[in-house]
Structures are given as C-alpha cells and as structure tokens.
C-alpha cells in the first residue's frame, strides 16, 4: 500500500515538473525576439558558455581521437585493413562520439555552472528584484543563456570531431605508420555528407536543446538554499546525461535503424 502511495506521489510530482518545465521552455522560446534584439546579452553568454568550454572540448577531442587511432590500428590490422582507419575514426566521431561526448562534457562544465548561477540568483532574490523592476528575468537572464547554449554546443561538437580526426591521424599515421594518403582519401570517399555529417549535426542540436533546457530549468526551479542549489546542480548533470544517452539511442535508431 505504502509502495503504491509513494509511486503515485512521485509520478504526480514528475508530471507536475514536466508541466512546469514545458511552460518554462515556452516562455524561453517566446523570448527569442528579445534575445535577437539584444545581441550584446547573447554575445556575453556565448563567451561565458561557449568559449570557456572550448579548451576542455579541444583537449578531450584530441585524446579521444588518438585513442580511436590506436585502437583502430590494432583491430583493423588483424584484417589487414589499416587503410580504413580514417573512415573508422571519422565515422565514429562524426556520428556518435562528437555529439555525445561533447554534450556530456558540456553538461558537466557549462550546464552545472548555469544551474548554480541561476539558482543563486534566485536564492539572493535577484530574479525577484528584476521582476519588480518590470524586467522579465526569463527574457533578460534565461533566454540569452539558452540560445547561447543552443548555438555553442553544435559548434563545439564539430570542433571535437575535427580535432579528433587530427588526433586519429597523429596516433595512426605519425605513431603507427599507417599510410597518410589512404587515411585521408578513404575518409573522403566513404564519409557521406548527409548520412554522417548532417545526422551528427542534428544530434548535437537536439542535445544542445536538452542540456540547456535541463540546466536552466533546474536552476530556476531549485529550492533557494545552499543544499537546494547543490542538489539541483547534481540533477542537471545526471538528468542531462540520461537525456543525452536516451535521445542518442532514439535518434540513432531513427537515422540508421531503417537500413
């Protein structure tokens, strides 16, 4: 009996939260016009959110690419297929690892920072004070951060993939003597613009949406105490990670499942 009671209670809470977050998203989206009319706010957030995650993404991309290069050579050489290394590295990066890993890193670096920032602004009544000055914090504070995240993550994911391909080259060609010509030419002929690159970009756009939404909503909905903000920050990282992996599965099934 107790079990069903608590099950019912938590499902109700979940549905209520879903409702609140949808309204929240709607309010952000209707702030698009405002954000476009105030480019300085957007640029500041692009710097805060995008540029500060740059080095993390660049270094992670390099190492992931190098590991792919090493693993690829060991696996492919058993079939004598080292010349396909370029295709393998690029396809894994562009289709999967680029969007997914950069979204996970982005949630950890920028998402948690956003949640903490918004939560603290709520706790110190700064959001309330703005409302009292007849300035809508959803438009002034939240919307520019959302769109900055929305723009940054796909660019960061592309950067991740590009640097990863370089990393694969370093490990495979420079270190393990795979032929440089076949690394690039096989990659060029086998990677399809629509099939691989566009699909990867679609993924990263959807992840950008998910992470920015989760991070900002958790901050806005946080209990305005230090414990509440720390819980909200944790929830941002955990829920974003779940959402990214779940949607990655769904999108992959949709994009590549049919053929």
């Amino acid at each position, binding site marked *: 009996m107790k079990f069903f009671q608590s099950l019912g209670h938590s499902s109700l809470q979940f549905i209520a939260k879903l409702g609140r977050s949808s309204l929240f998203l709607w309010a952000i989206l209707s702030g698009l016009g405002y954000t476009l009319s105030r480019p300085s706010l957007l640029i500041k957030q692009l710097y805060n959110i995008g540029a500060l995650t740059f080095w993390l993404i660049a270094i992670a991309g390099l190492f992931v690419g190098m590991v792919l290069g090493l693993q690829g050579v060991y696996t492919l050489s058993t079939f004598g297929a080292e010349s396909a290394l370029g295709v393998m590295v690029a396809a894994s990066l562009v289709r999967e690892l680029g969007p997914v890993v950069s979204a996970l890193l982005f949630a950890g670096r920028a998402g948690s920072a956003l949640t903490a920032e918004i939560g603290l602004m709520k706790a*110190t009544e700064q959001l309330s*004070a703005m*409302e009292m*000055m*007849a*300035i*809508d914090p959803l438009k002034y504070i939240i919307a520019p951060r959302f769109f900055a995240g929305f723009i940054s993550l796909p660019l960061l994911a592309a950067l991740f993939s590009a640097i990863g391909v370089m990393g694969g080259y370093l490990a495979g060609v420079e270190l393990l003597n795979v032929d440089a010509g076949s690394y690039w030419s096989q990659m060029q002929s086998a990677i399809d613009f629509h099939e691989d690159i566009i699909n990867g970009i679609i993924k990263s756009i959807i992840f950008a949406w998910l992470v920015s939404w989760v991070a900002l909503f958790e901050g806005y909905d946080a209990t305005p105490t230090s414990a509440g903000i720390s819980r909200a920050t944790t929830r941002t990282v955990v829920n974003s990670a779940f959402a990214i992996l779940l949607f990655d599965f769904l999108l992959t099934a949709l994009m590549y499942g049919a053929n």
Partner: protein
Amino acid sequence: MICIRNLTFSRGDRKIFDDISMDIQPHKITAIMGPSGTGKTTLLKLIAGQLQPDSGTILINQQNVHQLSQAKLYQLRKQMGMLFQSGALLTDMSVYDNIAFPIREHTQLPESMIRTLVLMKLNAVGLRGARELMPSELSGGMARRVAMARALALDPEMIMYDEPFTGQDPISLGVLVKLIQTLNQTLHLTSIVVSHDVQETATIADYIYLISEGKITGQGTPKELYNAYSEWVRQFMHGKADGPVPFHYPAPGLADDLLDSP
C-alpha cells in the same frame, strides 16, 4: 490608492493572512509593523503581484493586481519601487550599473543624463563615492542604501520599503528617516514602510497597521496607537518585554527544560 479586501493567504497549512482588509492612502506614509515572521514581506509581495492570494482582492488605482496581464502588471510595476529586505542587488554589476540598470532598460535617455540621475540618487543615500564598488564589496547597511537608490531610480509614484533601517548606524538611520519623509513630501509619493523600529517609524508615519498571527491587531495614527486601549498594541509600541505578546517561541518552562537531561 491601494485597497486590500478580505485577503487570505496560506503557506502550506499555515494561514499567513486570514481575511484582512486595509487601505493605503495616496501621498501618505503607511507603516506596517508586527512581530518577526508574521508576513510583512509576504504582504509586500502580494501587493506587488509576485504572490497570488488564496482569496480576496488587492486594487491599486482601481486595477486588480492579480488579474492583470503580464504586460499590464509590468506597466504598473514601473511606477512601483521596492526595497528588498535583502537588498537583492545584481551581483555581477557595479553599484553604478545597478542603479542605471532600470533606467537603461526602460528609457532611451542618453548616457550623460543617466549618469546625472544615478549620481543624484547615490548622493541622496550618501554613497556617491562608492559607485565603482561591486555589491560583494559593500557592507549590509551600504547594500541596503544602494538598493534604496535603485528603488528610486525610475522616480516611482509608489515605493515599498522592507526594513529600510536595519543595519544602519545612528547617523545614516537619521538620514534615511529624513529621506523617506522628504521624498514623500516633495515628490508626493505613496510610501509603505515595513519596520521594527517603532520610534523612528512612528515619527514619519501618517498611519500604522499592526499585524500579528494573520490579523490586524491595531491601526491608527502613531499617537492613537501609543495611547491605545489594547494591551497588545501598547506593549508592542512601547517595546515592553512583559505582556500579551510572547517573546519566546512556545516551549516548556526553562527550569523544566534545563533539568530534563536525557
């Protein structure tokens, strides 16, 4: 100006206001006093439309605050200044920018005129020299005075001060009391002052409401309240420890509590 009718508001199971009605006269200073935790800040947030009442209405200039569209409510709030109990300064801007912020957002004034306005507001609260500081570099009393300057930035018709005197030394306290009074007289503002400082508030208030446990326990001009018949009101106004207003949160007797070692 502000007309509150049969207002009821609860937090969880606790009724913060139980069917209260009050009127706030235009161009006057109305003080709201009461023990800590009775809901004075909550009342200001209800008036400003940040909280929704369970029942009852609040009319400001004949408009029902809780039925306005967001655009109309924001229009109304431009004429409303609020000094938050915590100050609530925007922490990533300097003192100067905090005060310039509402002016920049709501007017098209050139930067030179904004500068003049900001410096005048800061001068009024004695902090013109602190304009380059960040909010984290201010003391509690200074932050509250900056917040007061910000509340005045748009020259509102109505202003709500939540505990403006807390944390002020005797000199700035005197200046602030004077400032609230002068603003009210020269600009014909409607002011609401929430305060625990009975003495200071009574010298400037035209009318006082005392609230406690969800009800209005006393109202009148300061003079009327000082001489009130009700023992509760007299105790509060004269700040006496003995009387019907308990100082302690409900608890067993001190001796019992001390002897009752586990």
